[in-house]
C-alpha cells in the first residue's frame, strides 16, 4: 500500500471512530464531545491569533471569551449536522470549518462594533489611480465613468447600497448582513446579481472585461 493510500485509510478510520463515538449514547459520547470541543477551541483560538493585529484595542480576556463562544456554537452546529457529513474530508477538517467560521464572523463583527456603517445609494465619480501613462489613464477613466453610470442606471437601490458598501467601502459581508438583518448567503447573492448586471451593461457598452 502506498503512503497516500495508507494515509487515506487512516483518515477514514479516524473519521469513522469520531462518528461512532459521537452517535453512541452515554459516557463515550460525552468524552468524544469534550475532546471535540477541545479541538474546536484550539481552532477558534488559532483564528483569534491570526486576527489579533486588527483587534489590538480589544482586551485579551474578551478575545479568549470570544473563542470559547465560537467553539461552543461550533460544537452545537457540528452535532446538529452530523448526518450531513459526507466523508469528503477528514471528520476533523469538516468540524474545524465550523469553529473557524464562528470565530471569524465574531471577530469581524467585533472589529466593526464601534464603526458606523453608512449605506450610500449614490456612487461618487470613480477616478483611476495615476501611474499608467496618459492613454492608459484616459481609458481607465472612461471605464470608471461607465461603471459609475451603469451602477446608477441599472441596479436597484438595494443592489447599489450593497455593492457600494462591500466593494467600495470595504464593509465586511458578515458585518453588513448583521446590520441589514440578513444572512451572508443572501447578501452575497445580491452582490453577485449586481455584479452580473454591471458586467452585462459594460459589455453592451463595448468594454472588454475578460482580463478582470
Amino acid at each position, binding site marked *: 500500500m502506498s503512503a497516500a493510500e495508507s494515509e487515506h485509510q487512516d483518515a477514514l478510520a479516524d473519521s469513522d471512530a469520531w462518528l461512532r463515538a459521537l452517535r453512541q449514547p452515554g459516557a463515550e459520547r460525552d468524552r468524544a464531545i469534550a475532546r471535540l470541543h477541545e479541538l474546536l477551541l484550539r481552532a477558534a483560538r488559532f483564528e483569534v491569533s*491570526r486576527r489579533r493585529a486588527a483587534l489590538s484595542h480589544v482586551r485579551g480576556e474578551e478575545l479568549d471569551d470570544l473563542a470559547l463562544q465560537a467553539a461552543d456554537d461550533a460544537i452545537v452546529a457540528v452535532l446538529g449536522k452530523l448526518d450531513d457529513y459526507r466523508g469528503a*474530508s*477528514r471528520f476533523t477538517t469538516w468540524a474545524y470549518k465550523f469553529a473557524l467560521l464562528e470565530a471569524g464572523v465574531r471577530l469581524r463583527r467585533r472589529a466593526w462594533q464601534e464603526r458606523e456603517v453608512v449605506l450610500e445609494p449614490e456612487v461618487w465619480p470613480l477616478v483611476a489611480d495615476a501611474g499608467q501613462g496618459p492613454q492608459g489613464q484616459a481609458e481607465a477613466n472612461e471605464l470608471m465613468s461607465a461603471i459609475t453610470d451603469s451602477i446608477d442606471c441599472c441596479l436597484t437601490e438595494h443592489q447599489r447600497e450593497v455593492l457600494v458598501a462591500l*466593494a467600495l467601502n470595504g464593509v465586511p459581508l458578515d458585518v453588513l448582513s448583521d446590520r441589514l438583518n440578513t444572512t451572508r448567503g443572501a447578501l452575497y447573492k445580491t452582490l453577485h446579481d449586481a*455584479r452580473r448586471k454591471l458586467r452585462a451593461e459594460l459589455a453592451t457598452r463595448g468594454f472588454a472585461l475578460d482580463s478582470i
Partner: protein
Amino acid sequence: MDRHMNDDTLKRLLGPGEPEVLCDECFERLDEYVELELQGEPADERVPGLRAHLQGCPACREDYESLRAFVQGS
C-alpha cells in the same frame, strides 16, 4: 468627492468573470477543497466554481485561508 480606483477595487466591484458557487455551497465543500489542495489533487476540477467564489467573496476567502493554514499546521 471622487473615489480613486485600482485593479483590486475593480475586481471587488465586478467580481469573478466566470461561474462561481455561492456562499452556502462554498461552506459545504470547503473542507473537501482544502484537503484536495493539500494532497496536490486537482481541487479546481473536482470542485468547480469554488476558486472563482473565493476570488469574489472576501469572507469565504478568509474562512478558506484559515482552514487551510490550520489543517496544514495541525
